[in-house]
């Protein structure tokens, strides 16, 4: 992918030296003695951030497919609610949605005795279900709009060919429509997933301990400000890079040679 020769350009060498210099300076000039103490908590935070991201992206996307389909070809009584949902989600801050769910629903539920006595209560009194719900709905709202365009963007003749051979509707959706729609928006979805990653720190505001919450804890406990933030930035950049690589791999695998359009 990246060959050594293209890296060995003078301006790139200078940039790399600057970066190495910065890393060395960070290692020697800054304080890292707090690390061993907080390492277990940081690992827990990393784990929380990652599973929140994966779970909400997967669930949100599963919701986005029907949302997109309803808007693209659904009858008005399905298209309108889907459109309203996507508009509200995309038109309001995620922080607001998160707080409405956590402080709104979260304070509404305890008023009903049957909820308090239900099997679900041990979960509903925690913060993470509200974090999952808010992030999932947010991803679904944005991707629902993306999928609407993706479904509409598939050439009519492709579906007509399937229909003309008597392909049942669900088979057509599974074999022709969805694969072609996905192929059109895979690069967009990669970018949106990175945006979703960058939205996860908001859950720290409702007491979920993700990696961002851990860095805040370190700051308030030790009054060390920059070191945890620098590490936090490195973590997010690494994850963003992994997401980008993952989607690039998917594009090559899925799109392959068929990508060229007519």
């Amino acid at each position, binding site marked *: 992918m990246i060959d050594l020769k293209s890296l060995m350009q003078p301006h790139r060498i200078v940039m790399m030296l600057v970066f190495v210099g910065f890393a060395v300076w960070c290692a020697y000039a800054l304080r890292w003695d707090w690390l061993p103490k907080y390492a277990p908590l940081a690992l827990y935070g990393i784990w929380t951030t990652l599973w929140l991201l994966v779970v909400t992206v997967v669930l949100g996307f599963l919701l986005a497919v029907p949302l997109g389909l309803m808007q693209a070809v659904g009858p008005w009584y399905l298209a309108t609610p889907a459109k309203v949902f996507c508009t509200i989600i995309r038109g309001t801050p995620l922080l607001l949605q998160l707080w409405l769910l956590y402080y709104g629903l979260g304070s509404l539920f305890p008023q009903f005795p049957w909820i308090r006595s239900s099997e679900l209560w041990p979960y509903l009194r925690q913060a993470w279900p509200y974090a999952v719900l808010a992030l999932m709905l947010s991803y679904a709202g944005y991707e629902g709009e993306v999928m609407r365009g993706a479904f509409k963007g598939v*050439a009519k*003749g*492709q579906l*007509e*060919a*399937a*229909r*003309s*051979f*008597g*392909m*049942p509707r669900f*088979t057509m959706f599974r*074999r*022709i429509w969805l*694969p*072609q729609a996905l*192929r059109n928006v895979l690069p967009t979805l990669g970018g949106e997933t990175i945006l979703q990653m960058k939205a996860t720190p908001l859950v720290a505001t409702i007491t979920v301990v993700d990696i961002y919450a851990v860095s805040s804890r370190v700051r308030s406990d030790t009054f060390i400000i920059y070191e945890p933030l620098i590490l936090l930035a490195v973590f997010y950049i690494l994850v963003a890079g992994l997401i980008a690589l993952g989607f690039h791999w998917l594009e090559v695998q899925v799109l392959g*040679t*068929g990508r*060229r*359009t*007519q």
Partner: protein
Amino acid sequence: MDTAKAVANSDEASLNQEAIKVEDLHKSFGQLEVLKGVSLTACKGDVVAIIGGSGSGKSTMLRCINFLETPSSGKITIGGELVEMHADGSPSNRRQIERIRTRLAMVFQQFNLWTHRSLLENVIEVPVHVLKVPKSQAIVRAHELLERVGLGDKADTYPAYLSGGQQQRAAIARALAVDPSVMLFDEPTSALDPELVGEVLTVIRDLAAEGRTMLLVTHEMKFAREVANHVVYLYEGRIEEQGPPAEVFGNPKSDRLKQFLSSVA
């Protein structure tokens, strides 16, 4: 019935030999009435060429036969089976129409090969996922069909890497893979560069020679005259004239047909 048909073996033209029967077909798009009562019968082994100017309704008629367009009214019988329709002309039995469509293979003007699949995958798609033929069997057959249309070495190629003529030949292979009782050709050469038309016509000519039942909407008059055993001339949504090609092309009776033939010659 005003659709006297010239059939090679007209003595045996019994009811069950009628592959396609269209009766009094009407189709409107909003205010515009495109088909104003068309009736047509094609028997097994017939090659029916449908000609006419643009906007005469020939493609619409073909597309109504497999219900890609919903007729406004009329009766359509495929292989002796009457298609169940609502009062508004839409098919009322989705399973029936899906089943009937598997017997009618369509070849489109724009080829419409599935761009995300290789030629081989295009050809086995319907046999495997609609007709439930075992995959290994479908693959063997697909290779034979691709070989037959001269694309034996392109099985793993994607449609975008092929010329229009090659794509259309692959589309014909895809249509043959379902072993259709009738093939519907919707202007199969109209989107092709002139030098690519010949290779597609050669394939269609072979199919006609082996006795396939075909409905062919075309602008290639010489070709229609050569392969068809019945020619239908549509003018503004009605059948203006029809008959054996020698009659229709050699001795046209209607002035409109004369004018049409002289304008395309």
